[in-house]
Structures are given as C-alpha cells and as structure tokens.
C-alpha cells in the first residue's frame, strides 16, 4: 500500500497501477520519533518516523520544511521500504501545472517499477505510463475518485445543514479513505461494520475504490431521510442554529484527528464546516475527464514536454497527468500555497454560506504553516468580516486537555454572549 502525506498527491496514480493507496492518518506520533526528528517538529511529521514503516510505501509531499526532513529521515534511517518525495509546486499557474504533471508522471513511473517488483513480473511486463492501457485505467480511476469526492462532499453538506454531526461526517470521510487502502486481497485495517462491507466489496483490480464506494453508499443510506447515522450523531440532530447553540467553522492545516470536532460539539457548538486537508479541501473539487480520451489515446508527447518553460502548458490539456496536476493544484488552497487572498476569501465565503459566527483554528504544535496562516487569517478575516477566531494548538490526544476545553468553552460563551443566546 502507498501511504500519502498530503492531499495534493493524487491517489489516482497508485490506484490506477493497482496499488492500494490512502492518505496517511495516524492516532499518535511515532513512539521513537525523537531519535530521528527534533522535538520541535509537528506531530504529523513525527508520526511518519515509525520504525519499519509498517511495510508501506510512503509518498511525502514537500508540504513544509518539517515534512521534507521527515522524508529525509525515513529514507536515511530506512524506516520504510520505499519513500517517494513529491515536489508539489506552491503556485498554480500554467507553468507550475506543467511542471507538476511531469512530477506526477515520474511518480507513476517509479510506482510502476515498484508494482512490477512486488508482483515479481518480468521486465517485459512493465507498465507504460504513457501507453493507452494505463491511461485508460487512469481515466477510469479518476472518474471513480471524482464520484467519491462528490459523495463525501454531499456528506459534508449534510453536516453543514446540521443533519449529521461533524464527528460523523469526518468519520465517514476517514472510512472512505481507509477503504481506498483495501488491497485486492481484501485486507482492510478498520474493524467497523461498514468497513467489513467494504472488505467484502474490495475484490478486483481496484478493490479500494469499490470498497470506498460501498462505505459511502452505506453511510449515505444511514444518513438519508430516514435519519442520522447511529453512533454519536445526536450531537447535531435538529440543532442547526437553534436551541442556543452557536455555529462555527473549523480551519486547520491538518486536523490530525477528529477528536477536536467532538470536543467542540460536546461544548455546545455546531461545526458548520471544516476547512482542513481532513475536511472539505480534499473533496471539494473534480478532476476533468475527457470522455473522448477514455479510449486511452492520451497525449504522451504533451507529458514529455511538460514544464518546458514559460509556455509549458501549451498542448498539454489532453494529458491525464496534466489534468490531475491542474485539478489538484487548483483545489481549495491549503496554507502552503501562495495564492494571494484566496484562502481568506474562501474561509469567509464558507462562514457566510454556513452562517458560522466564529472560526476555531487548529494548529498542530510546531506547524509553521498553521502559525503563519492563522495570523494572516486573523488579520484578514477579522478586518473584513469581524469573525472572531480562536487558536487551538494541539498534538495527538490533546483535544480533551484542560487548556483546550477551557478555551473552547470560553469561546462558546463569548459567541453566545454576542448572539444574545
């Protein structure tokens, strides 16, 4: 399986190669991480530094200095059988897209070699990532991923309308992610009932996609008109902005784990949206698929030229790597990107549309991107919209600490006081 560190890395690529892949989600930092990385590193980076890497291939994006060095540590100390560095640009103009298309193609080539080695295939059996067969698969997987993204976005919409709690919505998103890691053999790490369904559905070349679709379908059925899902969904039931509860949004670089959402909801807040790479930023976009190219006649020439210079994007629009690069770089921006005021505008727009009265910003301890992002948002959003923002710093397992609980409770009291609730 390929564990991916960043929402800017398309899972479509390993999945199209028949390799299960998912976003790496941890529940704790690695126990021995401080042997490899400094104390003042963010918990997510430190979570990767686990010995033997549980046997997974790791793909780390250049999200920040810490992840870059985490990638070095994994490689240098041999903590994972294979480590890939994905050079994700920080801008999203045509040149950056073309460059990233080339990076993605290289990633596909490297993974194809991995897949061949793992299967014990002969050199002749290599996958031609520019050939029609692989491209056909890539387009098909992209369509499936689009469908999944739309499905999870619908779940998040249900959360925004108060039909299900943020904890439940995040739980579904995480289960979908887990299911993508289901291998052809039906190996699935999650013990939940829904994942058992996914395990059953997880046969065939793209078992993970089938399993993930099953998870989503099952979740939507349970969250449908008949009522919310079982298990903690009473948090938000029928409470969208009523009963003295205050609506807020959550913003973060990486939320680390959903526990904070539970703390917020238990404190009497309604989490109307979650702008995090464990939230809407990973799902709120589509990768355009050229139906006419489903025959697999991709434009390999365009890929080879990708990043050729100032006009490197010309002619690349039919290339599936280019489409992936463009869509992923253009998705709702995370704090690592340099896209002017786009992030602040998006947060304001989300707050407006979901009637959020405040923002809780979660910063993983020692996450520089979050520290800078928070200060910028506090200034921009505060000045333009007057939305109060609360900074909550945390590590794995810190969501229920006394400090966090007091801050959250005080924030709720402050917002309730403002609203006269």
């Amino acid at each position, binding site marked *: 399986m390929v564990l991916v560190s960043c929402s800017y890395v398309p899972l479509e690529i390993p999945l199209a190669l028949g390799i299960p892949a998912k976003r790496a989600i941890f529940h704790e930092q690695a126990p021995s991480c401080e*042997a*490899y*990385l*400094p104390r*003042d*590193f963010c918990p997510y980076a430190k979570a990767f530094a686990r010995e033997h890497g549980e046997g997974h291939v790791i793909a780390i994006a*250049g999200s*920040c*200095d*810490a992840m*870059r*060095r*985490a990638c*070095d*540590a994994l*490689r*240098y*100390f041999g903590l994972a059988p294979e480590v890939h*560095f994905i*050079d994700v*640009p*920080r*801008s999203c103009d045509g*040149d*950056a897209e*073309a*460059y990233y298309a*080339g990076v993605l193609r290289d990633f596909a080539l490297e993974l194809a070699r991995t897949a061949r080695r793992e299967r014990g295939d002969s050199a002749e059996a290599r996958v031609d990532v520019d050939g029609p067969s692989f491209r056909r698969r890539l387009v098909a997987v992209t369509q499936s991923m689009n469908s999944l993204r739309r499905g999870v976005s619908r779940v998040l919409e249900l959360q925004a309308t108060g039909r299900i709690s943020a904890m439940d919505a995040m739980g579904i998103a995480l289960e979908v992610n887990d299911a993508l890691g289901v291998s052809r053999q039906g190996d699935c790490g999650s013990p939940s009932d829904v994942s058992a369904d996914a395990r059953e559905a997880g046969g065939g070349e793209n078992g993970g996609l089938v399993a993930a679709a099953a998870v989503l379908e099952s979740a939507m059925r349970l969250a449908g008109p008949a009522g919310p899902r079982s298990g903690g969904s009473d948090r938000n039931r029928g409470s969208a902005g009523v009963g003295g509860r205050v609506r807020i949004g959550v913003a973060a670089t990486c939320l680390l784990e959903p526990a904070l959402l539970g703390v917020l909801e238990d404190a009497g807040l309604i989490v109307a949206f979650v702008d995090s790479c464990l939230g809407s930023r990973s799902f709120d976009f589509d990768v355009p698929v050229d139906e006419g190219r489903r025959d697999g006649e991709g434009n390999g020439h365009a890929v080879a030229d*990708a*990043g*050729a*210079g*100032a006009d*490197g994007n010309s002619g690349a629009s039919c290339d599936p790597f280019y489409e992936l690069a463009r869509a992923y770089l253009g998705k709702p921006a995370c704090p*690592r990107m*340099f896209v002017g005021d786009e992030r602040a505008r998006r947060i304001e727009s989300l707050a407006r549309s979901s009637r959020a009265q405040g923002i809780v910003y979660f*910063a993983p*301890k*020692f996450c*520089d*991107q979050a*520290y*800078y992002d*928070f*200060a*910028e948002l*506090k*200034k921009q959003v505060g000045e333009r919209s007057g939305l109060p923002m609360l*900074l909550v*710093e945390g590590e794995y397992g810190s969501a229920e600490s006394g400090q966090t609980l007091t801050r959250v409770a005080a924030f709720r009291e402050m917002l309730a006081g403002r609203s006269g609730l």
Partner: protein
Amino acid sequence: MTGFGIPSGLRRAARRAVRPEVVLRRRWAYRVASAALPLLERNGARPYKVAATRCVLSDFADAYLGRKPCIFASAFVPTELVYGMGGVPFLPEAAAGLAAAFGLAAESLSACEALWYSPDLCSFHRAGLGGAAAGLLPRPSAVIVSSHLCDGGKRSLFHMSRLAGCPFYMLDVPYSSSDRAARWLASQIEQVARDLPRRVPGLSAEGLPHALERSNEALTEYERTSALRRNVPAPWRGSEALNYVLLFLWSWGSPWLAPFYRALRVHLERTVAAGDFPVLGERHRLLWLNLRPYYDTGVFKYLEGDWASSVAFEEYSFAYWPRLNPREPFASLAEKMMSNFGWGPIERRLEVIARLVGDYSIDGVVQFGQWGCRQSNGGAAIIARELKGMGIPFLNLDGDGVDARCGSEAQAVTRLGAFIELLEARRGG
C-alpha cells in the same frame, strides 16, 4: 562577547537614546556615520571592517532614504537579481540578526507577538515581522521570496508585502535538479525580471549581466579568503566570521562585495604571514552549522578564549554555486538557487559537511539548533549519525539567535564545555 563587537555602551545608547525607526530615515545619520569611518580607520579598525561598514551604510541609506527601489528578499534569493536591476536588496531575516546585535530585537519580537504570530516560529522571521510592523524596516517597493529551504522566510515576507501594499513574487524552486526543473525556475526568474520594471519605476533588467560579472569577481576573491581559512591555526575568529555570514547572504552582485573580500583576503594573508592568530594556542577546530546568537553572549568568549577552540569555518559561509554566466542570467541564477546544498535530499548537505570537515581540518561539528528552524534542525539526527561514521564528534547546541529569552547561556556554556572536554579527551589532553 557582543555580536559584531559593538560595545555594550553603544548598544544601550542605540536602544535608549534614539528611536531607530526615526534615525534610520535621516540623511544626517548616514553623513555622521560615514564621517566617523576615517576616525575608526585612524584608530586601528581593520580595513575590511571599515569597508563593510561603509558599504552597509551606503545600502541602508539607499533603502531607508528611498534613493533606490528597495526590494525585500528572503535569505536565499540571489541578490544579483536586485542589484542588477538597479535596486537595493533588504533581507529582513539578516536585519533581525543586526537588530539583535544592537539590542533592538526585543521590541520587534513583542511587536510580532501582538500580530498573533506564535513564539514557536523562528525568531529571525518574528523579529523581521515585528520590525516591519514597528516601522523599523525600510518601505519595500517589491518583495521577492524563494520557496526553498525555509517556510518562514516566504511566509513572513508575504505578510510584509501585504503590509506595504507592494508587488510580491515567489520563485518556486523545484526540489529536483532536472533540466525541466531548471527551465521552469529560469522562466520564473525571467518573468520577475520582466515584470518588476513595469511595476516599480527605476528598475531595469539591463544591468543584470554586469551584476553577474561583479558577483563572479567577488566569488573569486571570496574563494581566496576561504582557502586562507584552511590554515591551521585559523586566521579569522569564527565568532566574527559568523557575523559576516549576514553579508554573505545579502551582497552578491553589489559593486562593493569584491573590494570587501579583497580587503579581507589581504588581512588574512597578513595574519598568516605574521603568525598573529586570533585564538591563542588553538587546540580544536570546529565546523559551525547554521547561524549563531547575535545578541550579547559569553559563549564565544569561553570557546575562543578559555577553551582555545576555533570555529574554523561555517556551513553558511560555503560558496556552493558555480561561476555565473552573464550571457544567460536567468538560467545561471536558477542554477545558483538549485545548487544550494540545503535544498534537495539531505545527502547534498551531508556531502558539503564532509567536504568542509576535510578541507578545514575539523575536529568537531557544532550545529546551532535555532529554535523553530525546522529545515536545519530536521537534519540533526542524520548529521550526527553520518559524522559518527566519520569519527567526528557532533553537538546540537539548542538556542535562539535573536530571542535571548528563549535560551539559557549557562546551559549553552555547559554543553559546549562538555563537548570541548570530549574533544580534549580524544586528543589525549
């Protein structure tokens, strides 16, 4: 020992008697300071110090008095680009080091905290942000950052561009060094060079080739000084050389860098010839990684005095790039940026460290663990393992280069002292 050898009385005066944000914008301040330089020279100040001071004053006057368009740049942007276009670069991170040396950093750090920036961020960036908010920095006409090496540099300068309402450019430096990557970066630099003159009056790309030539000339002189520093004992105090790292980051492409390094080279040649070495009875030679504390600290007094140990060379003094090609300025500057050993896989940094250990007859390596500097500190465990394999002791010395509140001098002295004892034991002392 005080950073930059600035007497403590002068620092106190700078802090209390004058308002630097006002003085820095007064023409008379530069006239007075320039007039004082010959006096310094007559009183025995070393010519290279006088040369450096003169040039810094000139650049500061250009920036603060608005004589030239001031372009803020992050630490690893090639300043040839700015000088070549007729602007004057200003590096807020490096200025933070200067502010710490003058005892002015505390105010900037407080101003930064008021803007909701976390104290867990690198203090070089926090002091820069606070300095901008407090009006201590000149007004930028534009901001250029590079994406490599350091997240804080690009983020803090982005904020400064917003504060000033000026154009912001980011050079997205590819991680790999493929031709495709080099072309992309070169095209970005070219776009900046084309766009800047349209948005900032007084700039033109015409001077770029000449700036690259000047940079090459300075590099030639610089390489000679670096070669002289291989001498055992060391001809230059490392504590002082670490101060000049700030100039090393700031000045490539300027008309004055080559004369400055020439003056330094002459000084080092004379020192070697006269055998008048700054660290008496040198017993240990250290390689210093990352920057140093720029505020008043006694650490180097112990190191270079009581413990007779030289910082023979510094990682950040290593000129890592090949000669620039004035006929291909964009490709050449792209190559310079991409050849930074702090970028790309850690093995590139390890190679440079191993090379410097050999070239400078190093006995031990000290990494200054600047609080919040993820890119440098993140390699500490790897560097320790690598050096262990080479039989070279390594110390990660936690501290803060600008924020004196975040460290303990007593603890730093104890740790460094224990490290020297270790070196002493290996030497059989």
